[in-house]
């Protein structure tokens, strides 16, 4: 199968959906001729014109609000939010307006909108361009949240998101834009709420989101050399969450580590770990561990930044401790 980058995968997904449905349009800062600072959208304006690849002023709440109203009245906007950190600026439009409109109207109004943005530290971009804020939006009923872990997922999830009648937030890892993965030439969609078992194993379940799937896979390789067989699962969407697949795995392995790049406290890892505790408690041989980003603003210095995010070695080390029983009576 051919291999393309995550950036190309997103671009293809958008182009295919814009060809299929002329109500789909892109709106955001420097999305047209510039194709975004990450060049993900390069070439789209040539095919679809500035009427459908719409450059905006630097006014995140404004263009987010416009997208909400456009979605409510019969178009299907894909909003480009240059950095995930800017979600704070659009919180009212996203969480008070987009997320609640369908419910508040008793099901009469829909907001078929995709918010494309990114996450991920270690790009030496410091505290306001490095955050992974998926927990913030996953907390809000009415929003769906997708977290592609490779070019393959990025394309399939994007196409599903565009066809969904609800507001969907997609977080792409900005460090993965140039990473290649096999992506079929034929059209495919990845349904929401279906986790992907990336690697089978019997001893411990590693649940990772976005680029943390690779971290989990690398940890599994390290562990395999030591005779520990880890199962690696990618939920692909955290809302809706494929609980059944996660629980089935944990019931088999009896141990789990949940890895996500958002801050650990009150985060995605906490939510998934707690669901496992509630629903698979008697199958567990050890506490379910959370591994999120350190609870500090992301520092600039590489010496500091690198210790704030989960690493394969860190995951492997925690897995060993769980396997040895060391953490059963941990304080």
């Amino acid at each position, binding site marked *: 199968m051919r291999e393309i980058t995550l950036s190309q995968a997103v671009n293809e997904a958008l182009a295919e959906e814009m060809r299929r449905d002329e109500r789909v349009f892109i709106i955001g800062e420097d999305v047209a001729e510039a194709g975004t600072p990450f060049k993900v959208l390069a070439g789209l304006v040539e095919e679809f014109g500035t009427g459908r690849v719409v450059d905006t002023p630097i*006014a995140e709440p404004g263009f987010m*609000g416009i997208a909400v*109203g456009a979605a409510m*009245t*019969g*178009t299907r906007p894909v909003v480009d939010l240059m950095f995930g950190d800017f979600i704070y600026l659009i919180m009212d439009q996203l969480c008070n*307006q987009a997320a609640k409109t369908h419910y508040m109207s008793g099901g009469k109004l829909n907001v078929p909108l995709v918010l494309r943005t990114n996450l991920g530290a270690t790009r030496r971009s410091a505290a306001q361009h490095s955050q992974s804020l998926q927990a913030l939006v996953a907390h809000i009923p009415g929003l769906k949240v997708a977290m592609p872990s490779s070019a393959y997922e990025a394309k399939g999830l994007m196409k599903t998101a565009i066809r969904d009648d609800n507001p969907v937030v997609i977080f792409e890892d900005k460090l993965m834009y140039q990473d290649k993965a096999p992506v079929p030439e034929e059209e495919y969609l990845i349904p929401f709420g279906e986790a992907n078992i990336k690697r089978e194993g019997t001893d411990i379940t590693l649940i990772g989101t976005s680029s943390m799937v690779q971290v989990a896979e690398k940890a599994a390789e390290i562990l395999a050399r030591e005779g520990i067989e880890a199962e690696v699962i990618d939920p692909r969407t955290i809302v809706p969450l494929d609980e059944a697949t996660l629980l089935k795995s944990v019931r088999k392995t009896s141990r789990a580590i949940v890895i996500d790049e958002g801050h650990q406290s009150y985060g995605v890892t906490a939510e998934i770990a707690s669901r496992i505790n509630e629903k698979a408690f008697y199958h567990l041989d050890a506490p379910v561990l959370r591994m999120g980003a350190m609870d500090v603003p992301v520092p600039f210095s590489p010496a500091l930044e690198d210790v704030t995010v989960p690493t394969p070695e860190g995951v492997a080390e925690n897995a060993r401790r769980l396997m040895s029983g060391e953490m059963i009576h941990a304080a």
Partner: protein
Amino acid sequence: MAKTKTNTEDYLQMYRQMVRIRTFEDNANKLYLDAKMPGLTHMYSGEEAVAVGICEALKVTDKITSTHRGHGHCVAKGAAFKEMFCELLGKEEGYCRGKGGSMHIADQSNGNLGANAIVGGSMGIATGSAFTAKMLGTDDVTVCFFGDGATAQGLLYEVMNMAALWKLPVIYACENNGYSEYTRTEEIAAGSITARAEAFGIEAHQVDGQDVLAVNTLTQKLVARARKGEGPFFLELMTYRYHGHHVGDINREYYRTKDEEKDWKENRDPIIRFRGWLVSEGIASEDEIEAMNAEVRQDAEQAVDYALNAKYPDVSEVDMHVYSDIKHALA
């Protein structure tokens, strides 16, 4: 008043709609005072000529966005009493199946995209609705209602900028009732409100919001021009709210005098003024007007009775309409 319309039916319709709003509000206020309505509500009484003058210049397919003080816009855009009272009382047959209440009534069938409990929260939505009209090539115009208090929100300036750049068919209608909650407008708005729109190159008008014909005549012209791509436009409608900020705001003398209220009610009431004009122009007799008032009163009483006895939604609806494609979000 300027006599610009020649159609008797149109005049009588405007009168009736103003009376319907006033009557609706009198009944809503009574429901609150009798402790039969859950929560609080914001009365539109006194401002009727604004909503009616504007909405009578619109087609059913034209859109509006509304505010926390939204019953007037909703009635003026064509909503029925029964579904409105049911919504106010949280009943299943309400416009939003009781999920929205007073501050969130949406009536999509008449182009009302919904009231909004976030001050200024719908400015993006209205502008986005106009974006849809332009993108899909419909000739729909969108009117964005908001108060003088909402002019302090930054979102307004972000979306006016884009609306002006993209020549969107949107009319920003600022209902200046002199107060932002319990604070005089002079204390929260520096400079001129219309000049703010003019700074974006948007044609702006200040108009007597107690004169339904003046509002209607001007709006008709602007709507026609907006349909031809000459928008956006901005209106500042000088008006007054008769009740407190909400129904529970009874003792108001610390922020406005009884004399001031009396003056507006006795000398500038939009319904009394228009009624006088209808009679003096020979368009309707006092008897005909009284008959119309009685009919509206009866209509409202019946709707209130109906709503009081109507069913609440089944509790199983609580997790419905969170997502359009998932029947019960928590199942």
